[in-house]
């Protein structure tokens, strides 16, 4: 077993060692189902999961930082980060181990929403393509949010601050594609060349086609690139702390 795998296993077990994981899962499942049904998943009488996937970016924007906030902030607060970094593991391995544990946890959270898919499949004959691509998009998006959360967790000792800043950044990356944000950018910078760039930063822009059943390379690359960038940033921060 590599060091990354060992850390991942320890972290993953750590989630379920406390009630936090169960509380998180219950809140996530309840909210996901509630929002989907509130928006007429049943009343529309159309066998698709569009409303269910519609809320994923918003839900993850707050839940992913909640999961990620303790990854490094907690270690730094209790001082165990020094201990961890003195072990024969690199910063990269430690970051990846923790990140993959969180990502796997989100994977489980998404798997637990399958009863909604089964319900729709019982009621009608949904197109499975958009369902699986929707899940793939949600999973990749969760990874990107988690990476953002990990970065801010590495940046500060305070979990709450890490959560708030990460949530704000995630929310911005969701809202960036909204016309109201584009208008604000347009009027603030008094130029329109920036708007396509800001729009392109939005997770909604990249997630939209995926939840409709189309996978484009640029959308996958965007999510993976954001994940990688924030993980590298986390590594830079931790390396800097290690050097200190």
């Amino acid at each position, binding site marked *: 077993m590599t060091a990354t795998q060992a850390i991942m296993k320890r972290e993953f077990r750590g989630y379920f060692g406390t009630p936090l994981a169960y509380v998180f899962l*219950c809140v996530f499942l309840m909210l996901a*189902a509630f929002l989907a049904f509130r928006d007429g998943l049943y009343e529309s009488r159309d066998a698709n999961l569009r409303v269910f996937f519609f809320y994923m970016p918003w839900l993850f924007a707050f839940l992913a930082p909640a999961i990620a906030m303790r990854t490094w902030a907690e270690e730094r607060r209790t001082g165990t980060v020094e201990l961890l970094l003195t072990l024969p593991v690199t910063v990269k391995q430690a970051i990846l181990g923790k990140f993959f544990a969180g990502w796997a946890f989100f994977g489980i959270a998404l798997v637990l929403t399958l009863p909604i898919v089964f319900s729709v499949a019982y009621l009608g004959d949904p*197109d499975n393509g958009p369902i699986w691509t929707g899940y793939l998009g949600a999973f990749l998006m969760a990874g990107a949010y988690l990476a953002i959360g990990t970065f801010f967790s590495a940046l500060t000792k305070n979990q709450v601050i890490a959560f708030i800043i990460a949530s704000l950044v995630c929310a911005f990356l969701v809202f960036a594609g*909204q016309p109201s944000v584009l208008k604000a950018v347009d009027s603030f910078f008094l130029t329109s060349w920036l708007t396509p760039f800001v729009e*392109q930063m939005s997770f909604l822009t990249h997630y939209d086609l995926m939840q409709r059943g189309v996978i*484009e390379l640029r959308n996958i690359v965007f999510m993976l*690139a954001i994940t990688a960038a924030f993980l590298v940033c986390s590594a830079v*921060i931790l390396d800097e702390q290690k050097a200190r």
Partner: protein
Amino acid sequence: MTSFTRTILGLCFILIIAFCGTFIFSKVTERWGGVDLTEDSVYTLSDGSKEIIDALPRQLTMKLFYSKEAATKIGADWFKQFHNFYYYVRDLLRAYERHSDGKLVLLEYDPRPFSDEALEADRLGIRRWPLTETEGMYFGLAVTSGAGAQETIATFVDPRPQMQAQLQARLEYDISELIDIASRRKKTKVGVLSSLNITGGGMTPYMRQMMQMQGRPVEEAWLTIEAGIKRFYDVEDVAKDATEIDETIDYLLVVHPKQLPEPTLYAIDQFVMRGGKLIAFVDPHCFYGDRPPQQAQQNPFGGPPPHDASSDLNALTKTWGVALDGKLFSGDLNLGQRVQTRTRRVIRFPGAMTLAGPECLSQAETVTADLDDIGMLFSGALRKQDVEGVTVTPLITTTPQGGTWSASSGELGGPMGPDLEGLAKKFKEGADSVWVAARASGKFTTAFPDGKPEEPKDEEAEGEDESEEAEGPEEPSKHLAACAEENSFILVADVDMLTDPGAWAQGVFGMSQMANSNVGFVLNSLDYLAGSNALISIRARKQFQRPFEVVAQIEKEADLRTEEQVQAINAEMQQFRDQLRDLNSKATEKNVGLLQSEAYENERKLEAKIREKEYELRDLQKAKLDEIEGLGASIKNTNIFGVPAIVALIGLVLFFMRNKQRREQVRGGVA
């Protein structure tokens, strides 16, 4: 530079690289397209569209107008749905462009107020939706060719969500259709020959408006012609007593041919013999389209004279392999629509059919394979004729339980309307399916073996003949005894399916929308005879809608379960209403005083009874709704509370197990 500053700069550099890199990558790969994993590949160009693109004779320009900057300026978040749809339209158009190998060029415009782009959009007929006093939103497409052809989708916006969804569902068809029409130098010409005025007399909208202003009655064209066929073809009226079908006419649509004179029949015959394509709609009783004239309806001397609303083309089609079976009607209880009778009872009437599914719509024929449902009323029955060298294929049939029945003109069109209850009783289930539409193919021979029939001559005509002779004799066209090559024609035993009430439904804001696949069938038939399967295959593309079958089944079962009860309640309510009417009509000036108290009492009792029955009816409807809502509630509760509860339970069990284990370990350690 301190290490902290270096770190901050490093972080900024990484993030800028990531966001800019993905932005540039997105822009570069924008036109690459993606992998469409939907079941019916709804986001991929269909083979039909590819076929149309491959067959393009010349370069076309697709001009996409979308007010992107206006959307940004307005900043309303409801705009997002149009924004997303714009991206979808743009990506689809790019897919067309990619496949065309240079034959299609996509130009994108973002019209700003008073700009050249806005002027161009206005010139091309793109609709402007006002957003503010100056800002407007354009979202439409124009396809133009160097030859001057210009076709437009004025707008991709429909404020009604349901209609917007439909617009999205048929987007590819609309674009392919636009390209197909714009690519032709001239539209194919369809001649329409009918005993009814179904083309509106070929009047322009201006002429129609002028006549309306003058208070003169204006006959509107049928929507199937106006909003269906005219979009794809040039439509030309052919007189019902025409003696020759113009050479420029490619297809002949014969609708409700009532007792056509022999020379006209001969003209149609020769049109088919020279390879012309014929689609004929005949009917033993055209209910909507062929009403008796107003004066006859108001005849003060007794009842109206019997009005013959039947038509056939048997004089010709018998020779070509298929004909209308006398004045027999086709029917099917399995397909019958629920109708209200004179006595206000609701019954399943076998003569008003919704023909759907592979049992009724031939899956082997491209014309019908992917249609959803065809609505027919008082349709006739077709019978195959044994003609050598001719193949006859049924396109639309009843189920094997379908049957035929006959009716007198009194039963069909009394002053109170048709006696549906009586007619339904006459229906007998058959042992085999009844044909209502069929296609015949082969080398047809003429129905006039002795050549051109002699035209009836009257004095006026003789005078004209003399003058014509003075101008010089006209060259007589050569009589054709048989088709030189194999030909096909389609015969349908219903005319009502083309009428506005038969094929169209009134939408919100008075806009008409197709009620069933009737118009699709006509267009498919024309496209099939033209040998163009491309548009048929796109038209056949599955819709986005995937209904909850379980809920539909519950509704259907509940309807069947309560059908008799609802009928009985409706009948009782009608009975009480009739009694109430009788009671009121008995009161005259003389006995009004005497009857007043008794009548008042009875009226109150009857009204109470009617109310009681209305409650009963409402309870029945509520029971159905309760069942559907009950299912919804249990599904919602299972997902919102059930699944999280199970997760919580598992968490609790594990927590207690772990605690127990720990306690045991502590105890073991102490021991």
